[in-house]
């Protein structure tokens, strides 16, 4: 494609970072502006560097944090916490050693900026429009909300980027996802993205980068846009992106790593060029009417198995495709659900408010709004896990922690927590949870645990009711 033909947002970023174009026999060499690192997917990459006597090429474009296997129990005055799990402790110590040896900045547990990697990048202003951003983590797609090309990579590729600041890539196709209309009261960005994934399926966007557009997207705050882009990977997409606009620039202004003064004006002029050209063509287009969306919830064992909260659980015998029928039967068996049953009113054991999808301050505000002056049902354990220490401080400054605590919820330290259940926060076998995280795979939140993915509003309403609740009733009722 020549420079003069109209280009998609993805095409602009791709062209802008191309060191070597792809050919039939070789992939493209793509430059990476920002590389985020965490404890779980990096140790073997640093080992490769050691084996080959290589250095980290650009420590100044690399940032590490601890989030996946870190405890969220209260920390001491030094912000440290004893880590009982020996393997997790060894892995965290390895990250500290690797960062020290290779000169990579690390926001360890005792750092005021520590948090989930996809929460702190944007919060610190590291994530900026026009950048290529990678991390050994599939939810790197989150950062696409800023008009960045951001995607998850494997550990071998983490080594590639550490050593060369580059990746070998084949160009992805693009899919435009246009969402127009106004979300009804009680409906959130999470419901919108769950609906999209239910519509196109968990493999629906494989090989594609999603470009979100339309009035529903434009009306969203940055945090809502991050929720949408975060779950792009759950439709199989390589990345999700939204063109930057004034909402983006307002969010970034004044953040610690955002450009300042004269640099800001120069950056802004550049950022404004990152929009799809009129007339640029996508390989596919999907259109969704945002105003028709109801609170969404998953009933099965992948994020595409989602329904409106007031809809019946699907019936396998209604499916014509044999393998889809088998998958649904297996999912319902794991979830111990009956075809046709209603999820509304179903008892749950745990409510988890957190994860890189929904642990930002606006998510906590939404939930606190529903829970103010209310009690978590006595049969429910509720965990509230802020996405970063910054979110935690902000929530405490606003008194949100008091609302949660007074309701009987647990107010925890920042981390991935029960989203991935590596740190001791986990479901017991057979337990049901409503979770604001992004994956309901078998065992994801603890071996044998059963997950219903939903929005922070649905999570809060469910915590109070003790059973799966329709968030709209709680929002209207206030």
């Amino acid at each position, binding site marked *: 494609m020549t420079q003069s033909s109209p280009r998609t947002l993805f095409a602009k970023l791709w062209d802008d970072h191309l*060191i*070597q174009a792809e050919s*039939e*026999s*070789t992939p493209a*060499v793509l*430059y990476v*502006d920002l590389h985020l690192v965490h404890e*779980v*997917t990096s*140790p*073997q990459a640093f*080992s490769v560097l050691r084996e*080959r006597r290589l250095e980290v*090429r650009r420590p100044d474009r690399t940032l590490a944090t601890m989030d996946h*296997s870190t405890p969220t129990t209260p920390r001491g005055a030094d912000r440290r916490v004893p880590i009982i*799990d020996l*393997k997790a402790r*060894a*892995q965290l110590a*390895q990250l500290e050693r690797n960062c020290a040896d290779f000169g990579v900045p690390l926001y360890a547990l005792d750092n005021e900026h520590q948090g989930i990697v996809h929460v702190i990048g944007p919060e610190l202003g590291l994530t*900026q429009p026009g950048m290529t951003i990678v991390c*050994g983590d*599939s939810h790197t797609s989150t950062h696409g909300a800023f008009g960045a090309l951001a995607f998850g*990579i*494997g*550990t*071998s*590729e983490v080594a*590639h980027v550490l*050593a*060369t*600041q*580059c*990746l*070998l890539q084949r160009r*992805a196709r693009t899919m435009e996802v246009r969402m127009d209309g106004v979300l009804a009261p009680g409906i959130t960005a999470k419901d919108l993205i769950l609906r999209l994934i239910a519509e196109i399926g968990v*493999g629906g966007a*494989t*090989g594609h980068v999603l470009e979100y557009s339309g009035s529903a997207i434009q009306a969203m705050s940055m945090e809502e846009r991050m929720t949408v882009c975060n779950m792009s*990977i*759950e439709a*199989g997409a*390589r990345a999700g992106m939204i063109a930057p606009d004034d909402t983006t620039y307002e969010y970034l202004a004044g953040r610690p790593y955002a450009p300042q003064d004269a640099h800001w004006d120069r950056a802004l002029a550049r950022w404004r060029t990152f929009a799809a050209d009129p007339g640029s063509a996508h390989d596919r287009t999907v259109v969704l009417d945002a105003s028709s969306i109801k609170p969404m919830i998953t009933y099965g064992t*992948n994020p595409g198995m989602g329904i409106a909260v007031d809809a019946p659980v699907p019936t396998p015998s209604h499916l014509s495709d044999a*393998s*889809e029928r*088998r*998958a649904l039967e*297996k999912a319902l068996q794991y979830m111990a659900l009956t075809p046709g049953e209603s999820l509304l009113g179903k008892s749950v054991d745990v409510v988890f408010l957190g994860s890189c999808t929904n642990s930002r301050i606006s998510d906590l505000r939404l939930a606190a709004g529903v829970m103010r002056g209310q009690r978590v049902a006595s049969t429910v354990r509720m965990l509230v896990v802020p996405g970063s220490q910054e979110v935690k401080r902000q929530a405490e400054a606003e008194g949100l922690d008091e609302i949660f605590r007074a309701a009987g919820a647990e107010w925890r330290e920042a981390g991935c927590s029960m989203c*991935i*259940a*590596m740190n001791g926060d986990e479901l017991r*076998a057979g337990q049901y949870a409503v979770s604001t995280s992004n*994956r309901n795979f*078998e*065992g*994801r939140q603890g*071996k*044998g645990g059963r997950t219903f993915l939903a929005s922070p509003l649905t999570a809060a309403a469910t915590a109070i009711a003790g059973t799966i609740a329709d968030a709209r009733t709680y929002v209207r009722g206030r």
Partner: protein
Amino acid sequence: MEPFVTLRTTAVVLPLENVDTDQIIPARFLKTTDRLGLGNDLFADWRYDVSGAPRPEFVLNRPEAKAAQLLVAGRNFGCGSSREHAPWALLGYGFRAVVSSEFADIFRNNALGNGLLPVALPEAAVERVAALIAAHADSKFTIDLASTTFALPSGERFDFPVDPFARHCMLQGVDQLGYLAAKEPEISAFERARAGAY
């Protein structure tokens, strides 16, 4: 990385679509700093019961699975988490290749980078392979990477797509880091040209 040229092997079938990497290797096994030793934990929650005993009905626990170096699965294999522990666990168990009608993007990259060959065949072909195995567990299949063909026991062949560069690396047993590192002059020139952009 071990070179991959040809493979002649029996296979086991996991007749499920959307097998995610959380099933291939559950997150609690990711607290390792090593690439080795994950084979025992492959599909742990499907393979073992609560007491840790093998579930006899799970495919990998059947006697004929022992020698199989090929896994045949439903579409969108390897979706979800980007964990490279998934191909490490499959390789650690003894698989060298996976057949499916579609692979998730990150999984495919991770597999290729480690010498685990993702063989994408048309859905009808995958069903035929599964049916052949169901009829004769000792059916042998031949994968030839140089010609990118997958052969049934009858000799009938299917072409499968592989990125030419990844194929070259796998045939030679070299990884991609060396290739990238050799681009150093171009990388430096690129950085100089856009200094100050960020």
